[in-house]
């Protein structure tokens, strides 16, 4: 009997444990409050645009007056919708009211993670390349590796920013207020704002993003379109916009996107993959200088990742500046000092501590993730949430960050393929890495360059966080050294280059009219 009681009480304990351990997970930005800007930045129509020549490059016609029959019909649409708000609509309101730039940035990060998968090899040990002309067949287009991702984040953020500057121009020009201000029987299901509602900033962001996505993630157009429709529905149901605010906003966004799409098609990224001849030349020209050329450490050997990405046109400076920012050469591959660097990397991986592994995994951002640029987007976004920025300032800050990250990627890739320097594991095969080894040359570290460029511009945007960003950037850089992926020199030089690139963004930030 005694034992039965014992087993019985044990099962009670187990049951209690089960009940107390719910598996429900609350994600970091799941329950954040609706965006309620402390400053609506009413003058943002005068801020300096990136590609648009003028904020009124694209004409937005004057909207109907708020006492016109057309507008009153639009108010009636909102009132009708508000009579019966479904739980799905409440979810949409909760999700999107956190902020449009934030949510689209999260969606983009998700797509980058989904598509950041290297193609599987062909039967003859060559590799297929994703094709934008045939995006649905394997390997799916794109392979959103770090350079691809950096460029995608930059184009979308920059286009969002220009489109919002244009939107703010028309908001102040026409000054048509929000439906809940016009008619007190329209409920405001978002925080009320004094910002003119025409054209809708959410629709502008959604429109410009959806249009950019056609180029960057062509297999996801239907998904993006659905998200856009949800966002626009949220604006109307919540009483924040009438339909004509939304229609005008989406149209403006799509027009501005066309300018950025045109730039993207001519920025040389399409040729970044190189050709078999380019790959051979990289190795032979390095050998001709008496240096050991990089070789792929994958099996079968994979062509190097986007060897001509260094030729992509940057946002913050011109192409000649890329060469100027390129650091001097690493030590000769036959020198003692190079050997010492690699031996030091070898020493790092012999007995990794749990804390070292944690740091490595925290910053790894390898395949199937949103990449290092995406990680810095996440860091920035979660700090920006606390700042209660207007949408246009959100966009401006994300554009500064992402143009920096893209340009850092360009300078870093230029350097990597200029020197075509082998990794520690190539020089010392016993260097087993604590995370997956990237398929491109070692010098200089991409993580370090990306991270310090981001820390530099973010430290300017949020000076109170500056030392935190610096510490994070240095940890990200060191994570590549302690994982055996890079020499310490690769990381130190990456940090230097990243800081130089970041300073270009700081200079722009000080003169764009937003500070």
């Amino acid at each position, binding site marked *: 009997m005694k*034992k*039965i009681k*014992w*087993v019985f009480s*044990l*099962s009670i304990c*187990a049951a209690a*444990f*089960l009940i107390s*351990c719910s*598996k429900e*997970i*609350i*994600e*970091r*930005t*799941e329950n954040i409050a609706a965006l309620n800007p402390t400053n609506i930045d009413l003058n943002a129509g005068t801020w300096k645009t990136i590609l648009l020549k003028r904020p009124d490059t694209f004409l937005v016609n004057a909207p109907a007056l708020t006492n016109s029959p057309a507008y009153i019909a639009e108010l009636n649409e909102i009132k009708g919708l508000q009579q019966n708000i479904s739980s799905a609509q409440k979810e949409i309101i909760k999700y999107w009211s956190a902020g449009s730039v934030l949510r689209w940035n*999260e969606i983009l*990060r*998700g797509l980058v*993670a*989904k598509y950041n*998968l*290297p*193609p*599987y090899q062909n039967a003859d040990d060559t590799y297929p390349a994703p094709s934008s002309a045939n995006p649905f067949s*394997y390997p799916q287009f794109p392979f959103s590796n770090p350079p691809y991702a950096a460029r995608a984040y930059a184009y979308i953020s920059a286009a969002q920013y220009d489109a919002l500057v244009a939107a703010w121009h028309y908001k102040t020009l026409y000054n048509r207020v929000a439906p809940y201000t016009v008619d007190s029987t329209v409920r405001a299901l978002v925080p009320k704002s004094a910002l003119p509602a025409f054209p809708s900033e959410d629709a502008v962001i959604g429109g410009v993003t959806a249009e950019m996505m056609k180029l960057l993630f062509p297999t996801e157009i239907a998904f993006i379109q659905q998200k856009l429709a949800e966002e626009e529905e949220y604006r109307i149901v919540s009483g924040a916009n009438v339909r004509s605010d939304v229609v005008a906003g989406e149209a403006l966004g799509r027009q501005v996107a066309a300018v950025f799409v045109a730039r993207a098609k001519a920025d040389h990224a399409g040729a970044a993959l190189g050709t078999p001849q380019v790959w051979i030349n990289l190795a032979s020209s390095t050998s001709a200088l008496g240096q050991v050329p990089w070789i792929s*450490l*994958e*099996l*079968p050997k994979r062509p190097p990742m986007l060897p001509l990405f260094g030729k992509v046109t940057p946002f913050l400076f011109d192409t000649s500046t890329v060469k100027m920012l390129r650091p001097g050469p690493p030590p000769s591959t036959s020198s003692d000092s190079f050997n010492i660097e690699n031996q030091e990397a070898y020493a790092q*991986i012999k007995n*990794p501590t*749990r804390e070292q*592994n*944690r740091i490595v*995994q*925290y910053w*790894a*951002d*390898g*395949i*199937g*993730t*949103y990449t290092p640029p995406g*990680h810095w987007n*996440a860091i920035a976004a979660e700090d920006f949430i606390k700042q209660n920025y207007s949408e246009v300032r959100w966009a401006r800050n994300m554009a500064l960050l992402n143009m920096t990250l893209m340009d850092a990627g360009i300078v870093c890739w230029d350097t990597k393929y200029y020197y075509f320097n082998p990794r520690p*594991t190539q020089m010392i095969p016993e*260097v*087993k*890495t*604590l*995370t*997956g*080894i990237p398929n491109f040359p070692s010098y200089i570290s991409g993580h370090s360059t990306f991270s310090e460029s981001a820390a530099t511009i973010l430290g300017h945007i949020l000076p109170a966080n500056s030392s935190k960003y610096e510490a994070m950037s240095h940890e990200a850089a060191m994570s590549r050294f302690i994982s*055996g992926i890079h020499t310490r020199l690769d990381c130190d030089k990456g940090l230097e280059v990243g800081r130089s690139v970041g300073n270009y963004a700081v200079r722009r930030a000080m003169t764009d009219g937003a500070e």
Partner: protein
Amino acid sequence: MNQNIIFRTKHFLITVFSCFIFCQLQAQTDLDAIMMNKKQLCTGLMYNHSAWDYYWEGTLKRNNLNLGTVSTQSTMGGVNYGITNKLNVMISAPYVWTKSSAGTLHGSRGLQDVSFFVKWKPVTLSFKQNKISLYLIGGFSTPLTNYQVDYLPLTLGIGSTNIISRGMIDFKHQRFTVTASATYIWRSNVEIDRTSYYDTRPHLTNQVKMPDASQYQLRTGYRGRYLIAEALLTNWTTLGGFDITRNNMPFPSNRMNITTVGGNFKYTLKSYTHLSFLAGANYTVAGRNVGKATAYNAGAFYAFYVNKSTRKNINN
């Protein structure tokens, strides 16, 4: 005499919980129909080796030249104690080390999970030369260290805390036995070192929701005074989770399913019944998001007779 023969390791834990891909489900005390007698104490040490070249990426069987052969070895120590003839408790923990024969990835090593089981035999029916027994088994396992779980397939374990409930029926006709068991494994969420991940959608958290799992086992063979020889068929099914996408890395919450066939042997020295030896092997015949592993194990066990009056054969 042979009552010491009872201890069998729980490779279960090294295998299924730890393994992406190398699950091999061994004979163990928590999975067999053997009880220790009252006040008997048995300790043992087992070595286990598991390796695979091929694995299932979702349902697609493939190899990976950047891993070559992935092998997991472990040594497990354990103690099994008879509170009564019908109620046993057991505890064990393995030290695990992993490596891949090709590619550049660093292997792992360290202590994995401690597991604790209570095994109860509430009902035994005898008729003629047959005997049917019912067993209820409850278990708990949890990581002993905070090893990294998001490093498949070279991680030490999956990192979840598990609550295991099992029902088992054993039929015995003279020395011939058939044992069938069904198990439900509740698994806690796990924490990974990064702040975001993508399974079938993006997640902004370091928490990973782990699907529960079920396990079925059928075993049959000879159960003698000194020798036990059994054939095993085991299936582990994860109740949820997602498939590894094309050429992606595995993840702790993948839908890992595995079916293995194997054999187990145990021999107790006639001249010195304190000591027994075990050996076993198994082979993966079907799987999903796991390695097609072949595994073998060997070990030795020592029994203490705390209460000599209870010495009798309990291999029943």
